[in-house]
């Protein structure tokens, strides 16, 4: 099939190879004596080689294999070409975010659909004190709105607290807080999760094995997230803890409160990132001024790093996200949006931050995009809630999934266009909510009625 496509392409435009051949014919053969002429011809040749390479493989542009990266042609790189590169690499980075978001959602949906524990009502968090067990609709709505107000104010207070700590350089406190949160997620919540999964599938496990498994999982996780580790392992751990956090939210947030909270969080996100005095924007700007990375434990980084010959020798010894930020210290412009990370509920208060970041391309590394863990968590909460409460219907879950992916795609497109801090929640959550309610109430009866008559549209 792939061959088929290339054939049809070349048949479509038979002249291209000929014209490229013609342009390859015309460059002068460089003479050995004149070094200047040789370098000029070399530039022209390499430039044309790049062009012929490009036209012969029209499908390869987004795979980052632009030939002649190290060639002196780069010196003539103008602002225009940088902008081209930004948009050219956009598709690849969208996919680099699609995959982890999809994985997180798959883990959450699979757990919700199979493990009964996360759909049982076992009380509520202290952040949502009002119960939704009231018979009247108005009272229930009022309770959910009150719950949302409390939850959002807690989040705002925690975020402002975090920004203040960061501003006054209380790094030890912040690191301690983050380490405590991830300790709790990696050990306690994993233990509960594993216990429930084993219960569901009726598998017996003895305590020594359990201790070994949890200890290894948690210890490697702590090292990968807070220190150094292989990039993919770090990404996997970040996805796991986002999924665990999302499952906790799905279990402990009452129905209507969850939806109102999702809506309110997107509005808060929009304001916190775009308003000049928003806490998240201040956090990002402070980090930018100090040329420091935002806490690596709270951001998912999709950046791939490799070092070519003239790389700085000390970058190889640092952790992955540290590296991307180190490279950014070259003084190039950074584009990022504030991050928001979620931590545990019981011991520490939640302080969600979220980020969508992209770095400029440098000679030594490929640009990466960063997404905050809070985004992962709330996307998964939306899809998980859809899976849990949509009357056993898979269509709603899938519709929400597609909606969130499209929202993410649009957000990344806006990021490429505006090149500044952008919130990743509003568009996706809006689409997700619209699709959830409309699919659950409108599409489901239609498709069910069609399926009962075995009609296809």
């Amino acid at each position: 099939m792939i061959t088929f496509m290339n054939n049809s392409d070349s048949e479509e435009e038979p002249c291209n190879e000929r014209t490229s051949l013609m342009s390859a014919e015309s460059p002068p053969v460089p003479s050995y004596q004149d070094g200047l002429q040789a370098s000029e011809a070399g530039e022209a040749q390499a430039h044309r080689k790049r062009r012929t390479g490009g036209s012969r493989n029209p499908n390869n542009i987004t795979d980052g294999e632009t030939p002649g990266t190290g060639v002196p042609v780069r010196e003539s790189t103008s602002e225009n070409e940088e902008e081209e590169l930004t948009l050219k690499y956009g598709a690849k980075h969208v996919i680099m975010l699609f995959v982890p978001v999809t994985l997180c959602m798959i883990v959450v949906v699979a757990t919700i659909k199979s493990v009964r524990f996360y759909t049982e009502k076992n009380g509520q968090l202290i952040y949502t004190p009002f119960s939704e067990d009231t018979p009247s609709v108005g009272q229930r709505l009022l309770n959910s709105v009150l719950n949302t107000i409390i939850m959002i104010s807690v989040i705002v207070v925690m975020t402002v607290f975090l920004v203040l700590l960061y501003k006054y350089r209380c790094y030890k406190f912040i690191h301690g807080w983050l380490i405590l949160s991830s300790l709790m997620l990696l050990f306690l919540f994993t233990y509960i999760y594993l216990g429930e999964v084993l219960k569901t599938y009726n598998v017996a496990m003895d305590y020594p094995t359990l201790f070994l498994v949890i200890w290894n999982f948690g210890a490697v996780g702590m090292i990968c997230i807070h220190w150094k580790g292989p990039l993919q392992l770090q990404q996997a751990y970040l996805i796991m803890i986002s999924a665990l956090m999302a499952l906790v939210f799905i279990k402990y947030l009452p129905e209507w409160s969850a939806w109102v909270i999702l809506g309110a969080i997107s509005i808060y996100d929009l304001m916190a990132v775009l308003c000049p005095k928003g806490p998240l924007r201040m956090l990002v700007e402070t980090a930018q001024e100090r040329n420091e990375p935002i806490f690596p434990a709270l951001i998912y980084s999709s950046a791939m790093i490799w070092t070519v010959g003239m790389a700085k020798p000390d970058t190889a010894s640092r952790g992955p996200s540290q590296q991307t930020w180190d490279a950014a210290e070259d003084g190039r412009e950074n584009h990022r949006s504030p991050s928001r990370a979620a931590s545990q509920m019981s011991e520490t208060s939640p302080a969600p931050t979220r980020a969508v970041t992209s770095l400029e391309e440098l000679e030594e590394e490929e640009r990466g995009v960063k997404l905050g863990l809070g985004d992962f968590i709330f996307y998964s909460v939306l899809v998980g809630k859809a899976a849990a409460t949509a009357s056993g219907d898979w269509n709603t879950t899938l519709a929400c999934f597609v909606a969130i992916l499209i929202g993410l795609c649009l957000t990344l497109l806006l990021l490429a266009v505006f090149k500044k801090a952008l919130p990743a929640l509003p568009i996706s959550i809006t689409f997700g909510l619209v699709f959830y309610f409309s699919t659950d109430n409108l599409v489901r009866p239609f498709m069910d009625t069609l399926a009962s008559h075995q009609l296809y549209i």
Partner: protein
Amino acid sequence: MGAAVFFGLAGIAFGPALALVLLTVAAEPLRVIVLVAGAFFWLVSLLLASLIWFISVHLSDREDAKLQYGLLIFGAAVSVLLQEAFRFAYFKLLKKADQGLALISEDGRSPISLRQMAYVSGLSFGIISGVFSVINILVDSIGPGIVGIHGDSPYYFITSAFLTMALVLLHTFWGVIFFDACEKRRYWCLGLVVATHLLTSGLTFLNPWYEASLVPIFIITLCMGLWAFVTAGGSFRNILKCLSCKQEDDSRVMMYSALQVPLED
């Protein structure tokens, strides 16, 4: 029923789609994005159609079974027309995107051709349409139960799976033909695509008389497949060339750069 039935049905319904996605779409980021965006467009069209059907049902007499069946037919027809309308809208969007990508690319050509986008968009419509039609049935097939115990056909599952497979392939072919027709402004082709879609949907109304519905639908699928193949530039000669695995003569000969002194990069 059980896991065996589930996997068998899933294989029948989504085997071709999965193979096509894995072999042709999964490796290219741009195609994956076109795939997901196509699914989004189809979902929006379904949403609008369901809204229309829902309103019409609520405004009518619920007890009248014949009226409800008529409204269902009306809803299905509206849904088909809306799907095609959104396919046209997606064509417009992709055309604009194609121009944009060509503008920002190095050599003035976009990294993905409109034909590839036609194929991927058709595939995306097919996959999401198939998934929405059959996923609940598939999930139900894992659990216990007896098919057709109240007098319905016992072949419900397997015919649903085959219908879904046909639908996926049909949407793919329709996508290719539709985009080509829009490009070349052959409106009779467009009309024919819409008409065959309506016909296919109408034929499913003959279920459970499967001889009258499944066989014609598969014949239509075959015809659409041939038409799409010819539209995309295929021919008997192409197939022979592909099967004989001959190297293309004009892509390797006369590499003038090879004749010149290799320059240091």
